[in-house]
């Protein structure tokens, strides 16, 4: 019984990071990060700038190669350590693993020469080889969901930052990832535009989308997250439910959160 319970729980683990390390020019940005994410979980990563939050996201999404440790999605190993060196799975395997996650960037990184619709359907059509008609239907549904139904033919430069970020979320969702990463999704937005993006993320959370969000929006993290991770100096210094983190007696955590509440 105990055994079976364990197995069931394991099969629900979408992302597992063990002892991840990453340095740039001798500077240890990630020292020893371990993290596992279950299906349906919403995790916020907070911490001062330079703490390694974004690097963690970039290593998890394989935009950066890690120096050591282990990374796996749905039990499939993407990278591991062999004789003290980090080894990545063969290209074809990584291609499969890539399909499990999506990433929403701070600066949206929409393709400016594509219309909103094309931004959303192009990857499904030309990468996943989904028929254009089906991809378009899926995209239209997403646009409707995200309140952008009338923007399908617009180009990114014609949209506000908030709208652009919502399009980029739709673009990521169109590939139907199991996990969605957000790298400070509202940091490039004017304050009056952050609300519309946060609302969309909340909506996704209510649909049990598994999400990992690097953010400076403390109130948002508190309301939304199942778990909050506090990072500093390349390490996870504290981890727990929002209640635990916001009532933490860890001095660094209290100091950091205090800065945002004044």
């Amino acid at each position, binding site marked *: 019984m105990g055994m079976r319970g364990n197995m069931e729980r394991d099969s629900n683990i979408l992302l597992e990071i063990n002892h991840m390390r990453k340095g740039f020019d001798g500077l240890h940005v990630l020292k020893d990060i371990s993290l596992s994410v279950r299906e349906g979980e919403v995790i916020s990563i907070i911490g001062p700038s330079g703490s390694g939050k974004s690097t963690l996201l970039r290593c998890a*999404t394989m935009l950066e190669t890690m120096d050591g440790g282990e990374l796996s999605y749905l039990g499939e190993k993407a990278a591991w350590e062999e004789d003290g060196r980090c080894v990545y799975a063969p290209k074809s395997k990584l291609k499969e693993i*890539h399909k499990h996650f999506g990433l929403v960037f701070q600066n949206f*990184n*929409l393709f*400016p*020469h594509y219309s909103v619709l094309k931004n959303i359907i192009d990857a499904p059509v*030309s*990468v996943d080889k989904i028929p254009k008609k089906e991809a378009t239907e899926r995209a239209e549904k997403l646009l409707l969901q995200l309140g952008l139904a009338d923007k399908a033919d617009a*180009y990114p*430069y014609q949209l506000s930052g908030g709208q652009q970020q919502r399009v980029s979320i739709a673009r990521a969702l169109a590939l139907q990832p199991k996990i969605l990463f957000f790298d400070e999704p509202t940091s490039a937005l004017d304050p009056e535009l952050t609300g519309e993006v946060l609302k969309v993320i909340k909506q996704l959370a209510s649909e049990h989308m598994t999400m990992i969000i690097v953010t400076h929006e403390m109130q948002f993290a508190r309301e939304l997250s199942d778990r909050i991770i506090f990072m500093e100096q390349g390490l996870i210094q504290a981890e727990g439910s929002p209640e635990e983190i916001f009532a933490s007696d860890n001095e660094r955590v209290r100091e950091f959160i205090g800065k945002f509440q004044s």
Partner: protein
Amino acid sequence: MSVATMLMQLGKGMISTAEIFFLTLLFSLPLGLLVSFGRMSKNGLVRGISKFYISIMRGTPLMLQLLVVYFAPYYLFGLNLRGYRFPAIILAFSINYAAYFAEIYRGGIESMAVGQYEAAKVLGYNKVQTFFKIILPQVIKRILPSITNETITLVKDTSLAFVLAQAEMFTMAKQIAAKDTSMMPLMVAGLFYYVFNLLVAFVMERIEKSMSYYR
């Protein structure tokens, strides 16, 4: 020589000029892209060779390059190639312009935000798709004004083919001018080049406009 005959002769030269122009663009634009890849290669040897190639092509006179390309097969290998004149001209122009285009491409490619590559990577595009679908269209929009510049220069540079006695417009104009001891043919040739370039500028502007639907 009557004005009509002169215009006929110059018109014939114009066809040859246009041939040099279009064929050079046809070959040098893709070749330039290839050279720019070499110039940006991670492989130091490839990068070094590309850099050297570009510096030679840009650092020596095009007229000299025309002569070298035309006469090299004979002086170096003793080859007496028939009908080599025109291919030699196209070859010399293409490898010369490819060097200039390569640097323009490189400037455009290196000015692209890294975020475009990263977004493409996360969405699963492979390298070829990323370059041709995402990067190159944006690069072309950015470098178009520089390409226009080079293209206009090319129209005028075609006159250098006179060193190989190719019967293009400038060669014809010079011959007629010498025979008739008149400046008229040269002036008319000048007008031809000018009108050709007006046309080039017009077409390039249209292409630029066709890409102005986004920023």
